[in-house]
C-alpha cells in the first residue's frame, strides 16, 4: 500500500529518538560534528545561529514540559517568549522528532488556554518525521478529553495532515477502535472518517463496524465522508457492504491541511526525494453520463475494480490458508510502477478486463502473465464493443463518432504498448471494411490496420485487400498515401514479430503451425506484391505524384532491407511501374530515395549471395535468380541514365527505356543521350544550375557541358554536400570509378 510504503521511506532519521526524546543534545551534536559544515566559514556562522536557536528551543521545550496549571498568556512574558520561539523555529525549519511528545502533551492536557494550545498545534510541523509514540500518547490525552472540542478537532486535522510523516503506524493501527468510537461525535465525525480512511486495512473491516456506519448513515443522511469510508469498506469487503457513488462527487473530505499547508510544502521541498505525496483518493465514482442512451449501448471503458468473484471459494480456502485472500492487492490502489513490482505476486486482474486499456500498469502485468482467459475476456468485450459502437455499421450512431474515434485511438495505443494486435480488432476490420466509406474515423481505422496479426492469405485477400482496393482507387491522393503508410507499418510490425520470435525460437525450436517461416514469407510476399500492384495503378491515376511516390518509396525502404535488418530470406524488387516513375521523377527527393533503396538492395543481395556460397549447404530459402536478374536490369537502366548516358541503348527491361536511335532522333531533342544523367536529369538540373553559378559566376550562358572531367567530380562533391546521401551511397557502391573517365563500367555494378 502506498501509505505504508511511503512511511517506511521516512523511517531512517534519528535512530534513538525513543530513548532520548527530550534529550536534544544528541541532535545538536549530530549537527556540530557534521564535517562538511565546519569547513566553510559562512556555514559555521549559520551553525552558530542554529546553535543559539537550538538552545532557545531546548529551553522552550523544557519550559513546556514543566509548566504547571493554567498560565495566562497575556501576563506571562516567559510563556510568550517560549511560544514565539517554538513558532518561529517550527515554521522556518520544522521541529525535531523529540519535540512532538512534549508539545502534544501540553496542548492536549488542557493546562494552558486554548489560544496557546491552538498556536502550539499550528506550529507542530516536522523537520523530518513524527515519532509514533508521541502520537499514541497524544491520542490517550484525547481520550481523557481534558481539552476543549476545538482543540480535539484541530488535533485530528493535524493528525490527518501529518499522517504520512509519522514514522511508524502499527500502534496507531491498534487504536483503530478508539478512533472509530469518536464517530458518534457529530463535529468530529468528518475528520474521524478521514482518519479512518487513511488507517483502514482489510482486517479493520468488520460487520459490526459496517452496521455502526450504516446506523450513522441513517441518522445523518448522505454524507460524503461516510460515503468515502463505506466505499473503502466495500473495496476491501464487497461481500459485506455495497454502495454506488453518485456521479458528480469531487471531494470526499473537508480540507484539513489548511493551517499547515505552507509549512508542509516547505518541509516537502526540503526533503524532496523522500517526501510523501498525499495519496489521491481512488474511489471509483460513476462516470459522468453525458447523454441518455440505453444502458448497454454506451461506450464506457470500465474502471479497474477488484474482482469479487472468488469470495466464496476464498472463504473455504481461508480455513486452510489464512493468507490467500488478505494478500491480494486491490487494483484500485495500484497507482505506481513500484507498487506493481512489489505486489506482482498477489495482484488480481480487475473484474472487467476492458479496464486494462486505460491502465498502463495492468498492461505491464498483462504482458508478464500470459494467461489465455485474460485475452479471451478482452477479446469478447472488445469485439462486442467495436461492433456495437461502429459508427458506420450501426444506424443512428453518427453522433457518437468522436467517442468512437477516441475508443479506436485507445485500442491502437494499447496495441502499440503490447506490441501485438488484438484478434477482435482484426475481426472488426474484416467485418466493417466492406461497409466503410473511407472517411469516418479514417486515421484511426488505418492505424488499426497496421496491427492486423499474421494470418492466412485467403482470409486477408477477401476480407481486407479486396475491400481496401475499392476504397483506395476511388479515394483522394491523401487517402492513398495514408493507406500506403499503414501498410508499411503493417509490414514492419510483421517483420518485428518475426525477429522477436526468431530470438525466442532458438530456445524452443518450435513454431506454431500457422506461423511457419514459409507461411510468414508467403504472407509478407503477398503484402509486398499487393502494395506493388496498387502503387503502380495509383501512380498512373495520380500522374506520378511526388507526394504519393514518396510514400511508396518509403515502403520499399523497408522492403529492400528485409534480409539484413529483419533476417527474413526474402527480397522483392519494386515493379517497373514504381521503379521507372521514380527514376524519371521530376523531384530529387524521390530520385535520392530510389538511389538509397537500390544501394540497400545491392547490400542485401550481396550478403545473401555470400551466405549462400559460404555455407554451401542447400538453404531452405534461396533468392530466385529472377530477383538478381531484375536487380541487374534496373541497375543497368539506372547507371545508364544517371552516369553513362546510355539508358536508351542498354536498358534490357521489357518495360524499360530502350528506344531506337531513329525514334529518338524524331523527337528533335539534340542531346537525348545525356538528357537523364546527373547533370541534365530534370530532378537534378536545379543543382547543376546552382553549381554553374558558383563555379562560373560570370558565365550567363548556362553551359551545362562544362561539367565534365575534374569539374564532374567537383559537381559530385557539391551534390553530396547538398544532402543527397542516397545518391552518394549509390554512386560509391554501384559505379566503378577506377577509370575516372565518364565511361564507367556498368557490368561491375551487377551482382
Amino acid at each position, binding site marked *: 500500500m502506498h501509505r505504508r510504503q511511503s512511511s517506511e521511506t521516512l523511517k531512517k532519521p534519528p535512530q534513538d529518538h525513543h530513548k532520548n526524546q527530550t534529550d536534544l543534545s544528541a541532535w545538536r551534536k549530530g549537527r556540530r560534528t557534521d564535517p562538511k559544515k565546519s569547513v566553510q566559514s559562512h556555514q559555521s556562522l549559520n551553525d552558530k545561529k542554529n546553535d543559539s536557536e537550538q538552545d532557545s528551543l531546548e529551553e522552550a521545550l523544557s519550559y513546556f514540559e514543566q509548566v504547571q496549571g493554567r498560565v495566562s498568556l497575556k501576563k506571562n512574558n516567559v510563556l510568550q517568549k517560549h511560544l514565539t520561539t517554538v513558532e518561529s523555529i517550527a515554521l522556518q525549519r520544522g521541529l525535531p522528532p523529540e519535540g512532538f511528545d512534549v508539545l502534544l502533551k501540553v496542548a492536549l492536557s488542557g493546562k494552558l488556554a486554548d489560544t496557546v494550545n491552538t498556536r502550539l498545534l499550528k506550529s507542530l510541523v516536522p523537520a523530518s518525521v513524527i515519532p509514533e509514540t508521541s502520537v499514541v500518547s497524544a491520542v490517550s490525552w484525547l481520550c481523557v478529553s481534558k481539552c476543549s472540542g476545538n482543540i480535539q478537532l484541530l488535533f485530528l486535522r493535524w493528525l490527518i495532515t501529518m499522517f504520512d510523516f509519522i514514522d511508524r503506524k502499527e500502534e496507531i493501527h491498534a487504536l483503530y477502535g478508539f478512533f472509530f468510537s469518536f464517530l458518534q461525535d457529530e463535529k468530529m465525525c468528518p475528520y474521524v472518517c478521514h482518519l479512518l480512511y487513511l488507517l483502514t486495512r482489510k482486517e479493520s473491516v468488520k460487520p459490526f463496524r459496517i452496521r455502526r*456506519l450504516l446506523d450513522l448513515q441513517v441518522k445523518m443522511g448522505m454524507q460524503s465522508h461516510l460515503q468515502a469510508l463505506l466505499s473503502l469498506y466495500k473495496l476491501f469487503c464487497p461481500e459485506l457492504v*455495497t454502495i454506488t457513488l453518485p456521479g458528480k462527487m469531487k471531494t470526499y473530505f473537508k480540507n484539513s491541511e489548511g493551517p499547515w499547508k505552507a509549512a508542509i510544502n516547505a518541509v516537502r521541498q526540503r526533503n524532496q526525494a523522500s517526501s510523501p505525496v498525499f495519496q489521491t483518493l481512488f474511489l471509483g465514482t460513476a462516470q459522468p453520463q453525458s447523454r441518455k442512451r440505453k444502458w448497454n449501448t454506451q461506450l464506457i471503458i470500465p474502471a479497474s475494480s477488484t474482482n469479487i468473484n472468488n469470495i466464496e471459494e476464498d472463504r473455504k480456502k481461508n480455513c486452510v490458508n489464512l493468507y490467500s485472500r488478505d494478500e491480494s492487492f486491490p487494483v484500485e490502489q495500484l497507482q505506481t510502477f513500484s507498487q506493481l513490482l512489489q505486489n506482482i505476486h498477489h495482484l488480481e486482474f480487475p473484474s472487467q478486463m476492458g479496464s486494462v486499456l486505460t491502465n498502463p500498469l495492468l498492461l505491464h502485468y498483462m504482458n508478464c502473465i500470459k494467461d*489465455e482467459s485474460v485475452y479471451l475476456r478482452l477479446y469478447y468485450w472488445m469485439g462486442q464493443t467495436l*461492433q456495437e459502437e461502429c459508427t458506420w455499421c450501426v444506424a443512428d450512431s453518427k453522433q457518437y463518432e468522436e467517442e468512437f474515434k477516441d475508443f479506436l485511438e485507445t485500442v491502437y495505443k494499447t496495441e502499440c504498448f503490447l506490441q501485438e494486435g488484438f484478434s477482435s480488432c482484426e475481426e472488426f476490420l474484416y467485418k466493417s471494411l466492406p461497409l466503410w466509406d473511407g472517411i469516418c474515423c479514417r486515421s484511426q481505422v488505418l492505424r488499426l490496420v497496421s496491427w492486423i496479426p499474421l494470418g492466412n492469405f485467403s482470409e486477408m485477400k477477401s476480407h481486407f485487400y479486396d475491400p481496401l482496393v475499392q476504397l483506395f482507387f476511388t479515394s483522394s491522393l491523401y487517402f492513398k498515401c495514408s493507406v500506403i503508410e499503414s501498410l508499411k507499418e503493417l509490414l514492419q510490425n510483421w517483420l518485428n514479430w518475426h525477429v522477436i520470435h526468431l530470438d525466442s525460437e532458438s530456445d524452443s525450436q518450435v513454431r506454431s503451425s500457422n506461423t511457419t517461416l514459409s507461411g510468414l514469407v508467403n504472407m509478407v510476399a503477398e503484402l509486398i506484391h499487393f502494395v506493388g500492384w496498387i502503387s503502380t495503378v495509383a501512380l498512373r491515376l495520380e500522374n506520378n505524384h511526388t507526394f504519393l511516390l514518396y510514400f511508396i518509396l518509403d515502403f520499399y525502404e523497408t522492403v529492400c532491407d528485409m534480409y539484413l535488418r529483419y533476417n527474413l530470406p526474402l527480397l522483392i524488387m519494386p515493379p517497373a511501374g514504381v521503379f521507372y516513375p521514380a527514376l524519371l521523377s521530376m523531384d530529387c527527393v524521390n530520385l535520392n530515395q530510389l538511389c538509397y533503396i537500390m544501394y540497400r538492395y545491392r547490400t542485401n543481395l550481396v550478403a545473401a549471395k555470400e551466405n549462400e556460397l559460404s555455407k554451401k549447404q542447400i538453404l531452405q530459402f534461396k533468392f530466385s535468380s529472377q530477383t538478381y536478374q531484375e536487380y541487374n536490369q534496373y541497375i543497368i537502366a539506372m547507371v545508364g541514365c544517371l552516369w553513362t548516358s546510355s539508358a536508351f541503348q542498354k536498358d534490357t527491361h521489357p518495360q524499360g527505356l530502350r528506344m531506337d536511335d531513329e525514334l529518338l532522333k524524331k523527337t528533335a531533342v539534340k542531346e537525348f543521350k545525356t538528357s537523364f544523367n546527373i547533370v541534365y536529369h530534370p530532378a537534378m538540373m536545379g543543382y547543376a544550375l546552382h553549381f554553374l553559378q558558383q563555379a562560373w559566376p560570370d558565365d550567363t550562358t548556362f553551359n551545362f557541358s562544362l561539367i565534365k572531367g575534374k569539374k564532374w567530380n567537383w559537381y559530385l562533391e557539391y551534390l553530396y554536400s547538398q544532402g543527397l546521401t542516397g545518391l552518394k551511397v549509390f554512386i560509391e557502391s554501384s559505379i566503378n570509378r577506377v577509370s575516372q573517365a565518364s565511361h564507367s563500367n556498368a557490368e561491375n555494378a551487377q551482382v
Partner: protein
Amino acid sequence: LFPPPPQDNTDPQKTAFLLRKQWTLYSVTPLYGFSNAHLKHYARLLSAFIAAEKQKGLAVEVGVELDIKVAVSSIPDLKGSDRDQDAILVQLSLRPPASPKNSEEKLVWSGCFCSVSGDHLSENLPEDFTCLPLFLANGAESYTSIVGSWFQKTFDCCFRRLAISPLNLSWMAAMWTGCQVDKTTSAMELIFSVPCLPYPLDISYAIHPEDAKALWDTVQKTPGEITQEEVDVFMDCLYSHFHRHFKIHLSATKLVKVSTAIASAHCDGIIKFLQSKYLAGVLMLLTELAISQIQ
C-alpha cells in the same frame, strides 16, 4: 435445420414461466468465473447492488432483507443437450411493505440466461467460462439495466440487444408454418413496414394458418429439412398473392414482425413463446442467432 422435437426429459412445468410473456432478447458473451454452486451468494450480492443503485450514495449491507428480493436459480430442464450449461433464472420480486410475511411477493422482473444446443460456443474455451449466450428479460428496462450491469461487472461479460433480421424472420415464418398445432389457432400474421416515408406505415398481412400450411407443404421438398431457396419461394408466393390483390410489392418493404401459433417475433428482438411443445426449438434458433452475434 428444422428444430428437433423437444427432449423428453424436459419438464414442461419448469419452463412454463417463459410462455405467453414478452421477452426482450440479448446476446451475452461467456461469463467468466461464474459457478452454479454460488447462486445464493450471487442473489445476496445482487440484491444489495440493486438497493445501492436505487439509492445512489447510500451504502447497503449485504445479506439484510431489502425491499427487492432476488432469487437466482438454475433450470436444468432448459437445454438442448447435456453439453449445454444449465439455464439460470434471475427473479426480482417486491416484498409487500410492512405486512405479514405470508402475503405474496410480487414478481416484477425476470431474466433467463440459457443455451439450447449452443455447445459449439464453449468448444476450446477454458473451464473458467460459462456459455449461456442467450438472455431473455421480462420487466422494466431499469431492472434489466441494473442486473445486466451487475453481471457485466461481476462476470466480465457483454450484453447486446439481439435484433432479428428480416431474413431470419422469414425463416421463422416458414418454419413455424410447418409445425403441427391444435386446431383452435389464430391466424398467422406478418407485419411489414414501408421504408422511406415521412410517417410510419405498417402493413399487416394475415393468413389463415391452414392456407399457409398448405402453401408450405407444396414448397417444402424434404420433410424435416428447410433450405433458403424454399423459404424464398414461400415468401415470394405470399408476396405475389398480396400483389395480385393490393398491387403492393411487399418485397420492397421490411418484414418487422411474425406472429404464429408457435411464437411471435419482432425484429427489435422481442419474442413471445406460445407453445411449450416448440419452446426448445425456438430457443435453439435464438441461441444460434445469439452465438453468431458474439462470434
